[in-house]
């Protein structure tokens, strides 16, 4: 009798434990997070750019410069065809900050505009790096980079880069490819060109007709 009572008690306890466990198991469901759904958009505006460079896989290959080369543009004075930018200040172009957010870039007026950096003294240039804008994938049109010892760029002008295939800027048609802006900036081979002033043109971009600059670096060695 005592044994049966114990067996009954044990069975009851097991049953209760099983029921409690089952209840907890029923209470639990697998966690399913809702992934963000795509947001509907309208007809995309076509990106029509002549001679657009295909996207590159992986990081940019190393570019070799002379050991004595430094960023000669850092903190140097900048002038522009639009001396009163719509957003930001021209000093942002050579302040060393390459962040893509607002407050780090300067926005110039529509159509063809240029910015010019005075390196302070003639120099032998290895490379120019330019960041127009990289918070959104876009292509800047009519990108031209020139070097000269003449601050008015009338004499001794040497063109390092020209993606203006249709000569819309008026500096002659160029054969260099247009490219999509990224955080890496555009590296332009200066081929040891000599000069004191660097001027960069653009003519709006594929998103709007405004012109932007985050940073420009000019790598080279001051002439002795």
């Amino acid at each position, binding site marked *: 009798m005592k044994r049966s009572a114990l067996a009954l008690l044990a069975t009851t306890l097991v049953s209760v434990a099983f029921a409690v466990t089952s209840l907890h198991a029923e209470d639990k469901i697998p966690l399913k997070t809702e*992934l*963000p*759904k*795509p*947001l*509907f*958009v*309208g*007809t*995309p*505006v*076509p*990106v*029509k*750019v002549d001679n*657009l460079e*295909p*996207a*590159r*896989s*992986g*990081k940019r290959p190393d570019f070799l410069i002379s050991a004595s080369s430094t960023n000669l543009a850092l903190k140097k004075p900048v002038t522009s065809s639009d001396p009163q930018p719509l957003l930001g200040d021209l000093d942002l172009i050579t302040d060393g900050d390459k962040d*893509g957010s607002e407050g780090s870039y300067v926005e110039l007026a529509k159509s063809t505009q240029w910015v010019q950096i005075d390196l302070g003294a003639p120099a032998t240039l290895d490379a120019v790096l330019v960041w127009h804008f*990289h*918070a*959104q*994938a876009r*292509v800047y049109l009519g990108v031209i980079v020139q070097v000269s010892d003449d601050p008015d760029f009338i004499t001794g002008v040497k063109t390092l880069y020209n993606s203006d295939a249709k000569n819309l800027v008026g500096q002659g048609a160029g054969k260099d490819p247009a490219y*999509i*802006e*990224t*955080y*890496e900036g555009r590296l332009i081979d200066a081929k040891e060109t000599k000069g004191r002033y660097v001027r960069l043109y653009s003519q709006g971009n*594929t998103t709007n007709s405004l012109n932007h600059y985050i940073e420009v670096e000019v790598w080279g060695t001051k002439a002795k």
Partner: protein
Amino acid sequence: MGHQGKVTGPARRLPLGLLLPLLAFVAALLVRLPGLESRPFHTDEAVNAYILEETLSGEGYRYRANDHHGPALFYLATAALKPAGITRVAQMEAWMLRLVTACTGAALVAAVFWLRPALDSAAAIGATVFIGLGSPFVYYSGIFIHETLLLLLLTGFVGVFWRWRESGAIPLALTGGLLAGLTLSTKETAAPLLLVVIPVFLIGSPLSWRRQLGGLLAAAAVCAATVFLFFSNFGSHPAHALDLLAAVHQQVGRGLGHEHAHPWWTYLRWAFAPTSIGLPWSGWLIAGFAAVGIWSGRSHPFARRLGLWALLIFFLQSALPYKTPWLMLAFLLPLALLAGFGAAAAWRALPSRSVALAAAAVVAALLGTETYARCQRHAVDPANPLAYSPSSPDLTRLQRDLDTLAAGSPEGRDLLVQVISKDYWPLPWTLRRFPRTGYWPEPQVGVQPGAVLVGPEAINHFPFLPTKPYELRPGVWIFLGRLP
């Protein structure tokens, strides 16, 4: 004998009256079928597929004023796909959706015969050639957008309206109202079209102004009821129908705004300018024969009104900055009908039937050659003006690589796919069979193991991720990487 003649006359005409539209439909459909599956899926089609899913899955249609138009196409596609058990976008194939618009495009060709009280048979046959073979009509029948359904309903409306303006019969006015309501329920651009077409075809009506007013009011009431029913998802969301009114301001703003703004001559360039893929024969032949049609039909009331319709819509659309190539169909349709008049006149003017047949064969061959080039060989070539922001064939490579990635991962199709980009359409269509896909406009904290698709603007956040570039559309790239 006389009595017998009266009986057998209509009996002989009736089969022909059905046979010609049927033949036109079948022939037009055959022209529209090739490439329905193989052409890359346009962003607008991808967005439409996801909106269709809402209707198919029982969620119901919800009007979104920004770009996404009326529900008629989605209801039609639902009626076509639901019986086949399709309720999710993952079950869809491109050809299924495009077959719907291919049928509406082919029906548009057949609908030309609906205009026969105003258009003689020879002119109707001529017009079916231009609409059936003309590259803009074929191209936009082959993508899942609203345009061919809109034109089909508009043609139906014009046929009914023309009959009503002659007879004043109230059932015709009510049917006209229903068709006007359906065109408005297809796409908002129906509003300016109707505002042009109604007065153009009303001028010179033999009806008294009282009967005109009565018929128009009856039609307007039916039209309003149809629009309300469609936009409110048959009464379940009445507020959505009111959104249509609120959207008027937005739509006008878009028409006058900077988005898709092109110079006034753009439609002329798209329709007539030769490109690297050849001369747009359809533009030149339709315009050329329409000019002959205007001359030969200068005393024909319907032909004159077609000319006015084409001209007014062309000037209106050219004056608005907003332009897309499929909007050309709104003036190419009356021009093609007018070209039917021109073709009939040319047929009659040629010295013999064999010469006329040879000339017709040349016209058909030129149209067919151009249509093959623009709708098949160069369907997504940026040089093709009909291909506006086309999706890239590179998406096939992306799909293949993602399939390989899924096959090699333990999760298979449940592989987590994280899309981090501001511009990712039509990727949701490409990724429709990956249920665990999320979309973020900015890089989020803690990217999870799985496939990562990153736009160029965000790639600096993933310096550790080896990535491969894929083109979504000309000039728009996405990079695929895998986070172990």
